[in-house]
């Protein structure tokens, strides 16, 4: 988390957008290489540069895109590929619901924009900022836009480079997303009860992971842990 900045007494839309973009800069730095890995994977599966880039710009869902493209390339079945990506992206229902109370009174068009740029990372940054009482719709938009630019730009670069940069895993890109999630997770744990909730959700997700497809273990684990922690005496 960047150091807390003194509140600007008269923030303009521009200063709020820029503040959000600064908050989202680490996301950009991760999305460019991981987006490039998607660009490579998509072109290897038969997408053109334009298709791969449009996919990232319009969909903006890391794992969901990898799985959708892989499923389509292996089965040729569009419905199966769409179901696979939908299941992977179910956790966004929870993120969207969690963010909703912070978006009261936000115009519908702006809700659509914020929903489109809602990713694991932009959500984690925005919800932490909102709970600190600082986030509002333009700073959230800044976080979302810089994430979107990083992901789309990275995809275009990866698709354009094609085989020229070789296998991205040799640069450690495999660990870029996990590392981001680990940092986001550590940032979320501020109280003992949050630690307990996380441990419970992780245990349930792992126990179910061999039985349920896609992100169902994560979704079921998180719902169960949140319910148990809400019901548990304080």
């Amino acid at each position, binding site marked *: 988390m960047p150091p807390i900045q003194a509140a600007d007494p008269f923030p303009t839309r521009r200063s709020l957008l820029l503040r959000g973009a600064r908050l989202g800069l680490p996301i950009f730095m991760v999305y460019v290489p991981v987006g490039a890995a998607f660009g490579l994977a998509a072109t290897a599966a038969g997408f053109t540069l334009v298709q791969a880039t449009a996919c990232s710009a319009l969909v903006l869902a890391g794992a969901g895109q990898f799985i959708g493209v892989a499923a389509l390339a292996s089965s040729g079945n569009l419905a199966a590929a769409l179901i696979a990506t939908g299941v992977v992206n*179910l956790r966004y229902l929870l993120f*969207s619901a969690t963010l909703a109370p912070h978006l009261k009174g936000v115009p519908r068009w702006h809700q659509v924009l914020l929903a489109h740029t809602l990713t694991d990372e932009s959500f984690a940054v925005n919800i932490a900022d909102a709970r600190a009482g600082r986030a509002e719709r333009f700073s959230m938009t800044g976080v979302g836009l810089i994430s979107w630019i990083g992901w789309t730009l990275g995809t275009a670069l990866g698709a354009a480079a094609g085989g020229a940069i070789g296998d991205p895993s040799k640069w450690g890109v495999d660990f870029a997303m996990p590392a981001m999630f680990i940092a986001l997770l550590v940032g979320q744990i501020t109280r003992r009860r949050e630690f307990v909730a996380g441990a419970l959700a992780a245990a349930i997700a792992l126990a179910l992971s061999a039985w349920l497809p896609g992100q169902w273990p994560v979704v079921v684990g998180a719902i169960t842990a949140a319910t148990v922690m809400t019901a548990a005496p304080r």
Partner: protein
Amino acid sequence: MSPALAWGLILGMALTNTVIRLVPIAAISRLELPDVVHRWLSYVPVSVMAAIVATQVLRPGGSWMLTSDNPYLLAAVPTALVFKFTRSFLGAIAAGMLAFLALRYLLG
């Protein structure tokens, strides 16, 4: 891959993803939620992140890796420590990727 199939996937994924992400925001942001729901929602971020991290680190690529030479698990430690003490996302990610590369090299 035929252009129709590729564009079908792109537009289909765009539509599903936008619906999944927009419907709760659009529906819930108009409501006054009771405190118990706010409390429930307050546990969602940490629960989802922890479940994702546990799966990525202990089941990389979708199968169990419960061994002491699992580079994902080992590299998670410096990543978490660097973030805890510096609060720098970039520092933590850089440390994590370097540790991951070094571990994968050392562990073969």
